């Protein structure tokens, strides 16, 4: 089904989401919007890591570029909402291009550490320039939902619609890119860059391109994140966010886009589950504070130890093995 009529599947999925959003309460709608944003951000890391063999621990910084670009274009020029998202994508892609120029020459731990330094360094720029609003940051108000959607239509549902639509379009587009000439080149570079070069692929240019596209997606996620919390500030893009996104990407499996939901849902679900458990057993505050981190981190270690390619890829490999017999 998914293989034959991808567009159709995506539309059906969108309709299901649309119907669901009318049935569940506000909190779930908000969490749904968060999942959609994580899906985009994690997909951007999967693209970078799984398809080009590079890892970034600093995607929070690229999200921040997107968020600030969106807020600035809205506040300074009064750009319409759709345009602010486009500007966010372009700004982050430009940042990613510059970073990618350097990153293409680095690999493995060097790149991870460099992006980590960026994630720590970039938010402090906000304090340096008054136009970026310092520690408080900037407001980012996309306005109330259009009136034709009715009185009942809440702000969160509006966020959810925008975020979900953006996620569906982004993933659909990414899926197509992956099956294009570029996607195949990235896979070739990932598999063996010497062989790829001999086959006539410009390895450096492809890595930079992968970084640029990944950063553009991250910028979109950043603008959407800023939308849901109505502000952008250095505190909204902490180091913990960058680590969460890397975690989500590993849990989803960095070699395929197929599992992208797994990581996004896990990141949103674990705090929620812990919260329920804590209320049920009336545990102490320290459990509520630290259990989510412990669970996510343990899951992360177990994943890299036992299913390093991610659950989806693991299942596919097992399936293929069985089919061969």
């Amino acid at each position, binding site marked *: 089904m998914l293989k034959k009529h991808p567009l159709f599947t995506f539309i059906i999925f969108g309709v299901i989401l649309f119907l669901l959003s009318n049935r569940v309460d506000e909190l779930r709608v908000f969490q749904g919007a968060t999942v959609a944003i994580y899906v985009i951000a994690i997909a951007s890391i999967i693209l970078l890591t799984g398809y080009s063999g590079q*890892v970034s621990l600093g995607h929070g910084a690229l999200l921040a570029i997107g968020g600030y670009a969106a807020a600035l274009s809205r506040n300074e020029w009064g750009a319409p909402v759709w345009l602010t998202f486009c500007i966010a994508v372009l700004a982050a892609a430009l940042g990613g291009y510059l970073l990618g120029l350097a990153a293409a020459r680095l*690999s493995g*731990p060097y790149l*991870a550490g460099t992006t980590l330094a960026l994630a720590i360094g970039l938010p402090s720029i906000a304090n*340096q320039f008054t136009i970026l609003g310092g520690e408080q940051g900037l407001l980012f108000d996309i306005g109330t939902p259009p009136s034709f959607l009715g009185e009942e239509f809440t702000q969160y549902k509006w966020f959810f619609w925008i975020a979900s639509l953006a996620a569906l379009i982004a993933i659909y587009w990414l899926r197509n890119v992956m099956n294009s000439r570029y996607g195949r080149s990235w896979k070739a570079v990932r598999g063996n860059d010497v062989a790829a070069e001999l086959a006539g692929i410009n390895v450096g240019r492809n890595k930079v391109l992968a970084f640029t596209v990944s950063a553009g997606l991250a910028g979109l996620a950043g603008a959407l994140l800023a939308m849901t919390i109505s502000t952008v500030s250095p505190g909204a893009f902490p*180091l913990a966010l960058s680590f969460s996104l890397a975690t989500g990407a590993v849990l989803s499996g960095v070699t395929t886009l197929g599992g992208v939901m797994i990581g996004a849902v896990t990141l949103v679900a674990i705090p929620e589950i812990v919260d329920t458990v804590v209320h049920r057993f009336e545990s102490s505050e320290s459990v509520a504070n630290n259990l989510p981190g412990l669970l996510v*981190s343990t899951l992360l270690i177990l994943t890299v130890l036992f299913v390093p390619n991610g659950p989806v890829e693991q299942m596919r490999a097992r399936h293929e093995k069985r089919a061969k017999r």
Partner: protein
Amino acid sequence: MIQFINMLLIGIGAGSIYALMAIAMVLVWRSTRVINFAQAGMALLSTYIGFELVQKTGNFWIALPLAMILGALFSALVEILLIRTLIKHSTSGPVAGIVPIIATLGLLGVIRATIGFIWGNQDIQIQPPLSKVGFKVGEETIALSPMNLLVLLTVVGMVIILGFIFQKTNLGLSLRASAYSPEIAQLAGIRVGAIRTIGWAIAGAAGAAAGLLQTVNGTGAISPDSLEFSLLLTFGFIAAVIGGLESLPGAVLGAVVLGLVLAVVQIYISGTLVFIVAFALLLLVLLVRPQGFIGSKAGRRA
């Protein structure tokens, strides 16, 4: 003039602590080809243990070596339990390069959560063992307190001891041989596995010292989500990389250079710019001289 001297003092003081962290990263990299992103978490854990020991014994100078020993044991345990399993499981393939990075990141999360369970998420305070008021030269107070001086002397002492171990003892020779070529070292009768664990243990001790000294030298406050320790990790990494990532003198040199550059920025330009300047310095060195200040051309960027 006084400002210039203060800048030098601040730079060298900060650099000396980054040097310990950089040494820890270099030792781990040399022994297992892993950048340990959990180094800050391990240092934080050792600092908490140091805090407990200060409470129990009431003496910082007993607590410091004890915390270092416990830090070394913990680090060795991590190598045996996590890193060995990882190397055994690790497959070649697209994810082989990122597996150690992610695993140490996971370890960082586990350590932070565990600290939160045991000690809570609020700040706790460690009292500095010595005065933090600067010495007076004539009328001026310079940026060098008895505390700073002792930190500096402790670090210099540790670097000298490490240098002695590496250059003059059999253990040091084994450590260097295993880093240079594990296979050849193994053929020469060195137990590479055990040597790797020892490399991690020394790194754990250096990290513990960095954490404790940084804490008492700074605000004295620690918490599981301490930004200070994230910075320690990042600056330690930057120092290690610009120094060459293979060489211990390189790590010390890189750390002092980084400390001085950041001090110049902090005093003459703006305190908020230090992070981005550190990042720019790292990029600059990686692009212009990827093998670092000290280091040969081959085998880099692995």
